[in-house]
């Protein structure tokens, strides 16, 4: 509301300033107009006067001329009668009247000129008067008239004055006309300005009105906008809620289908029943996979996919995937080959999601292959910043014009009419997952036959994972036993496999602190791998109990934790652990730490 008031005030200020300017301009124009009007009135009188004077000169010149010629005619004819004398008298009166009018209109110069003229004519006029009265107009008149020289000079002056006055009158008229033009322009400008002012005011008022209406509308729509935003938020929450519910609702019946299926599997079944059940189970698992893929895609699209981005070992992920797809490959008679450098290739990604993508790529490569074909998996460090895994099959490849569509959801490129099972979502999801992990997923046809799918992921700056040569087999006894206290089944499974294959250790896992303590007490292993984040008790408490029990106090413990940092490491070492390994585990490091931990134990035992 403060903003509204401020805008309103500033608008009022601006508009009043503009209106003031226009009004001031208009006032100046009005004053000018009045002045011009008065001035032009004066000019008009002057011009009219000058014109009248000039006209009077013309008139006088004409009357004199007419009188002279009449007189000359009478005189020369020599037979003038009373009638001629009367006509000449009238003409002389008209001439005198016109020069008298000049003395009224004109200035001192005019009056002087007229006086001289009259002086020169007076004797002639008196004589003419007598002649008219007697009716005896004779040649004597010419002799007694005004001298022609003097008369001609006066007439020339008179003519000159007449011309001067005419010129003055003409100039006055021209000036007046000009001033009238200017005045017309000014009047037009004034009118225009007036119209402009009115128009401006109208526009300003309308604009002001509209603006106010707009501001009022904005102010009024504020609650509506808030309501719309709330509605959008609610809709978004509803969508999240829906996804969560759908996940639950769809998976719940699958629990019954697959659960009772598992129960049946435990029973004694006829071979036919077992086969039928296998179809129920495989279809159920397929449906579950589809549900999960749809939910994953929904999550990615709604930005709700939670990833745990960390340093992962691509070689490890590939090895897991190969193992998981081994039954499928064996079933189809496909040979899977892994090409990888001795040095492990790390990547920065979510280990489960990376596995999901590679599982999809490798299963596809097996499924869309020719009988007895090959699948080649190549792991390599693409550049300083990228690592990649390429999966190449020996199938028919992807038609060039369909390469684009490979990653479209539900587009199986005609495979729906074949016996190859698939959801049509796998590659779309894989690509989305790769991109969610700041990676890419691309496809190209292999030079010979088949297609190559390449997953590229960001790689850590330096490669600190070293190759880990296998340790000499431990020679029996407790030294081969390791207890892993870890609630994540996949993690303990991974440890078991790595330590089993690399160091020939026998790993037994416990998923809670309590079961772990009992297991360590019963088994007396050579080493304990302890995860700090346990479901039932704090890992440090487990460590403290192991240390306080004389039976287990001597067993080295390696602490692992997703809680990273120097503090966690210090705490673990201060609590009696021989090493602290942050999660995600660097398997190369793990193997070397375990090997080092077991060597002194062997020495001690020996």
């Amino acid at each position, binding site marked *: 509301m403060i903003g509204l008031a401020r805008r309103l005030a500033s608008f009022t200020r601006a508009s009043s300033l503009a209106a003031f300017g226009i009004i001031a301009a208009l006032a100046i124009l009005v004053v000018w107009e009045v002045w011009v009007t008065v001035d032009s009135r004066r000019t008009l009188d002057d011009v009219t006067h000058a014109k009248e004077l000039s006209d009077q000169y013309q008139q006088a010149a004409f009357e004199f001329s007419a009188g002279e010629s009449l007189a000359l005619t009478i005189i020369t004819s020599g037979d003038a009668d009373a009638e001629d004398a009367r006509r000449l008298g009238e003409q002389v009166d008209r001439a005198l009247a016109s020069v008298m009018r000049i003395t009224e209109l004109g200035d001192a110069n005019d009056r002087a000129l007229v006086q001289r003229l009259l002086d020169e004519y007076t004797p002639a006029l008196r004589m003419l008067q007598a002649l008219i009265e007697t009716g005896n107009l004779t040649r004597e008149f010419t002799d007694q008239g005004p001298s022609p020289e003097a008369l001609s000079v006066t007439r020339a002056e008179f003519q000159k004055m007449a011309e001067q006055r005419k010129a003055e009158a003409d100039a006055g008229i021209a000036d007046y006309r000009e001033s009238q033009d200017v005045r017309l322009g000014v009047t037009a400008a004034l009118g225009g300005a007036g119209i402009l002012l009115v128009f401006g005011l109208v526009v300003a008022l309308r604009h002001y009105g509209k603006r106010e209406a707009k501001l009022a509308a904005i102010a009024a729509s504020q609650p509506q906008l808030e309501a719309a935003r709330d509605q959008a938020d609610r809709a978004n929450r509803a969508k999240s809620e829906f996804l*969560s519910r759908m*996940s*639950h609702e769809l*998976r*719940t019946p*699958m*629990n*019954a*289908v*697959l*659960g*009772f299926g*598992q*129960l049946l599997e*435990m029973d004694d079944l006829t071979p036919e029943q077992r086969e039928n059940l296998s179809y129920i189970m495989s279809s*159920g698992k397929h449906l*579950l996979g589809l549900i999960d893929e749809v939910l994953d895609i929904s999550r990615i699209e709604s930005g709700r996919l*939670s990833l*745990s981005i960390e340093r992962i070992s691509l070689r490890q992920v590939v090895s897991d995937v190969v193992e998981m797809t081994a039954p499928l490959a064996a079933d189809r008679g496909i040979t899977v080959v892994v090409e990888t450098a001795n040095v492990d290739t790390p990547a920065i990604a979510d280990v489960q999601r990376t596995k999901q993508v590679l599982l999809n790529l490798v299963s596809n490569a097996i499924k869309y292959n020719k009988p007895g074909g090959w699948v080649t998996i190549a792991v390599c460090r693409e550049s300083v910043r990228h690592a990649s895994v390429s999966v190449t099959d020996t199938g028919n490849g992807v038609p060039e014009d369909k390469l684009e569509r490979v990653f479209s959801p539900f587009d199986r490129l005609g495979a729906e009419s074949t016996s190859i099972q698939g959801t049509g979502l796998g590659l779309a999801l894989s690509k989305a997952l790769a991109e969610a992990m700041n990676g890419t997923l691309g496809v190209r046809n292999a030079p010979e036959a088949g297609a190559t799918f390449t997953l590229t992921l960001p790689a850590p700056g330096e490669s600190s994972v070293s190759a880990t040569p296998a340790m000499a087999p431990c020679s029996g006894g407790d030294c081969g036993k390791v207890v892993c206290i870890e*609630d994540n*089944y996949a993690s303990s499974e991974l440890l078991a496999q790595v330590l089993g294959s690399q160091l020939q250790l026998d790993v037994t896992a*416990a*998923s*809670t602190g*309590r*079961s772990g303590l*009992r297991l360590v007490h019963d088994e007396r292993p050579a080493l304990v791998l302890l995860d700090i984040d346990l*479901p*039932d008790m704090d890992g440090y408490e487990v460590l403290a109990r192991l240390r306080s029990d004389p039976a287990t106090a001597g067993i080295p413990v390696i602490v692992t934790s997703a809680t990273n940092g120097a503090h966690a490491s210090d705490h673990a070492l201060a609590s009696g652990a021989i090493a602290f390994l942050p999660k995600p585990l660097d398997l190369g490091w793990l193997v070397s730490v375990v090997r080092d931990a077991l060597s002194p134990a062997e020495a001690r035992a020996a």
Partner: protein
Amino acid sequence: MPVSPEPVTVLYIEDNRVNALLVQRALTVHSTFQLIVAESGGAGLAAAHEHRPCVILLDLHLPDMSGEAVLQQLRAAPETKATPVLVVTADAAASVQERLLTLGATAFLTKPLDLRGLIRTITEVAA
């Protein structure tokens, strides 16, 4: 698998009868388990108080109250404070799991249930 001579009492708080029946059947394969089913959070809390089960299986979607509230009340009551609670869930996100762990959940079991995994986990936490 270590088998204790005493039957292990398991309380399953679950409103879906088919799911309850499935777990019932799965557990009765082994004579070591005795399953009690409660179809609501309230009934579950009452049964936990009455039967003092060794392990509680808790579904998160209950008709009368949230599984989270049930867990909190179980942890607040002295007689069930230390009882392992396995949360049976179809869809728990990492954030939800974390919250439940801080509230005292022992572990998670994902639906559709892996029955062998279920029995293994119950055996482990009941020990």
